[in-house]
C-alpha cells in the first residue's frame, strides 16, 4: 500500500475499510505448511473453529481448503484434526513443492 499524505487520509486515525487486514499477507511467516487431504476430511470443522488466523476456507459449511496467504503455519489445525482422521499434516515449507 502506497503511504499517503496527511491530506489524503481520514482524520483521527479512523480505518474505514473494515477487515482490510485481509490484504496483508502473513503467509510468509510460515515455516511449516498444513497440507489438507480432502479425501480423508470428515468436515467436523475442529480445525476451522480453532484457527486463530481465519485461514480454514469453508463453502456451504464444509472445508474447501486453506488460505495460505494468511496461514502462519502454527499447526493447531493438524493437532486438532481427529487422530483417526488425520486429514491435515504439517510439512516444512522447504520440503513442499509449490
Amino acid at each position, binding site marked *: 500500500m502506497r503511504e499517503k499524505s496527511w491530506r489524503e487520509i481520514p482524520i483521527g486515525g479512523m480505518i474505514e*475499510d473494515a477487515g482490510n*487486514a485481509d490484504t*496483508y499477507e*502473513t503467509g510468509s511467516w510460515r515455516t511449516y505448511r498444513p497440507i489438507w487431504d480432502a479425501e480423508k476430511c470428515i468436515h467436523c470443522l475442529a480445525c476451522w473453529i*480453532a484457527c486463530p488466523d481465519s485461514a480454514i476456507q469453508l463453502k456451504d459449511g464444509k472445508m474447501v481448503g486453506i488460505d495460505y496467504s494468511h496461514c502462519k503455519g502454527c499447526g*493447531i489445525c493438524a493437532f486438532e484434526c481427529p487422530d483417526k482422521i488425520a486429514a491435515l499434516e504439517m510439512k516444512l515449507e522447504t520440503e513442499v513443492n509449490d
Partner: protein
Amino acid sequence: MPAPKQLAEREDLMSGGHRACAGCLPMTAMRQMLLTAGKDTVVGCATGCVEVVTTIYPYTAWKTPFIHNAFENSAATISGAEAAYVSLKKQGKIDKKINFVAMGGDGGTYDIGIQALSGAMERGHNMLYICYDNQAYMNTGIQRSGGTPKGTATSTTPAGKVIPGKTQFPKPLTEIMIAHDIPYVAQATPGYPKDFSDKVEKALAIDGPAFINVLTPCTRGWRYPPEQSMEYARLAVNTCFWPLFEVEYGVIKINRKPKNILPVSKWFEGQGRFRHLFKEENKGIIDEIQAEVDRKWTLLLKREEMTQA
C-alpha cells in the same frame, strides 16, 4: 445452541492478516466470540495483544465496529457507547438491536482496568465484558499480572535462585465479578468452543451487564509449542484449574465436570513457565497449588448444589 456446524453458517467477522503470533488462542477466542455475536456488535478492547495485532494502521482485522481507547478503560468506553445507543434509541434516531462487548486481557481487566470494569457493571449497562485471560502482560513482554498463577516464571517474577517465580495466588476475578451481583458471570475457554459460544449468546441475550472470563493460552508466554494451544486450554479445564461454569442470577452451574480429573502437574508439564516447579526443591509449590485447586473445586461443587436448590 451453536456448535461449530451451526457457526459455520455464519460470517467470519475477523479477517486474516492480523499480526498475532502463530498459534494465538486469544485470536481464536475473538473469532469465536464474533461468530456468535454477529455483525451488529460494537467491540471495544483495552490496549493489549489483541488490540495491537488487529489494528495496525492502516489495517484492521475487525469487520464489526471496533474501538480502542486506552489500557484501563475498555469497560468505561463501551459503557459510553452503550449510553449513546440508549440516548439515540430514546430519541428515535436508531432502531436496531446492537450488542456491546468490551474486552481486555488479564492486565487490562484484573489489574489496571478493574475500577472501570467494576463501575460499568455496577451502573448496569447492557453490555458484555470479556476478559481474555492469558495470565500475564504478554503485549509488553510477559510480566506478571494479578491473574498470573502462583509459581509462574514471568519477566518480572523470574524463576531465580532464591525466589521460584510468582509467590502469590492469582486474584479471584471471576468471584469478584460474581460478587457484583450482575445477571450473568461465566468462565470459559476457546478450547471448548461450543461452551464458550453458548455463554456469549446467553450473555448477550440477558438484559444488563454480563462478564465472561476466558482462559486463552499464549504460546509465547506459557512457552509450549504453538500447535498445542487448544490442548492447553482443555488441560486447564480437565485439571480443574479453570472450571467451566456460569452464574445466572446467582445460580451456579458447572458446565463441565471432568470424569477423570487430572493433577495440575499435567497442565504444568510442557509449559516452560512452570518448568522450574518440577525441580526437587520446588515440589512443595505444586502440592500447594494442587491443594488450592482441590479446595476451590470442592467448594464450587458445593456452591452449585446450594444455589441450584
